[in-house]
């Protein structure tokens, strides 16, 4: 059973990569993947909350009574979400406006509560950080990947995260396939990527 720290980290990158293997936390996945910059920004914010809440839950795991553990976890998560909200307003205001209500909604992202319940409340702090970081990085990669597909076809561009650079992919004569950046494209694209993951896993 004793997994190494490295194994705890790497399982989040393929074996349990959210949202493809753990089908949780779909709302931000669908909503913020219109552009790569938004997707990766959301991924980084969620990773920060995930790592911090995993650490704190794991440190307090012997103190929190099991009957009231879920409300306690939610309050811990909410605290870090407020931290992210305030930091983003200070350093990345345009991104904060783009992500809108999906920043406060990190609180109700099932991945974070799920990791607190399934992993951090049963394991010591160091593996919990590794787990949070692994799942968080996996989530960021997944968001970036999905956003890459949607943005490339839907707008013909790729925006580089944390800068204002936007790369034109297909030249000026490309007619954008706007279906992909609208709501239906999000569902269909995620469904097809899931199917590809299943195919690759067989």
């Amino acid at each position, binding site marked *: 059973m004793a997994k190494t720290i490295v194994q705890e980290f790497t399982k989040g990158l393929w074996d349990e990569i959210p949202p493809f293997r753990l089908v949780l936390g779909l709302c931000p996945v*669908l*909503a913020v993947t219109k552009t790569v910059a938004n997707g990766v920004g959301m991924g980084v914010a969620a990773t920060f909350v995930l790592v911090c809440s995993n650490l704190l839950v794991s440190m307090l795991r012997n103190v929190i009574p099991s009957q009231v553990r879920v409300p306690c976890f*939610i309050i811990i998560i909410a605290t870090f979400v407020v931290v992210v909200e305030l930091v983003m307003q200070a350093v990345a205001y345009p991104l904060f406006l783009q992500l809108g209500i999906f920043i*406060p*909604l990190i*609180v109700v992202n099932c991945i974070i*509560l799920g990791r607190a319940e399934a992993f951090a409340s049963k394991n010591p702090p160091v593996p919990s950080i590794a787990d949070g970081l692994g799942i968080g990085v996996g989530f960021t990669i997944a968001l970036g990947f999905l956003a890459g597909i949607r943005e490339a076809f839907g707008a013909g561009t790729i925006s580089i995260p944390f800068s204002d650079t936007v790369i034109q992919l297909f030249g000026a004569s490309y007619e954008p396939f706007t279906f992909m950046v609208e709501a239906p494209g999000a569902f269909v694209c995620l*469904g097809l990527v899931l199917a590809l993951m299943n195919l690759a896993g067989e």
Partner: protein
Amino acid sequence: MSDYILLAVSAILVNNILLIQYLGNCPFLGTSKSMDNAVGMSMAVVFVLAMAGIVTWTMEAVFLGPIGLQYMRTIVFIVVIAALVQFVEIFMKKSMPGLYAGLGIFLPLITTNCAVMGVCLINIKEEYNFLEMLVSSFAYAAGFGLALILFAGLRERIIIGRVPGPLQDVSIALVTAGFMSLSFLGFKGMI
């Protein structure tokens, strides 16, 4: 009056919470495998969302707004919603055992349903007054129920159909939801 009707129609159809605003997708996929579960979940959401809307709006208006604590909104709202769900559960168990048996297992799930928290935040963001908030909470919840029940009907048919191996279960459900979303996008022309 017509403003309220317009608000209701736009919340139910044009800005449908599940298919256009992408909120509450975990229960959307989780409880749509059978019609009974879908109906139970929809009823629970209508019930909790209406109450949560009133409570969070009041909190914002009388407590957070006047003393300038808006940045605490996230924590306060999630605690209020969690407490409210717990309270509703206890109250129903005691006084409405029939309804409790129907909604019972769905109530705890609602705390982490982002549709509830999302609508509460939308109500604040759009600066609705009390009546508008009431209409929007009910209408968004009705939109959630409508989309969930329609989708459960489709999904019951998909289960008996022949779906290619890798596309099975969640994957085909998402593609189906995509095409439902496309048809809801058509309502955009209405307003």
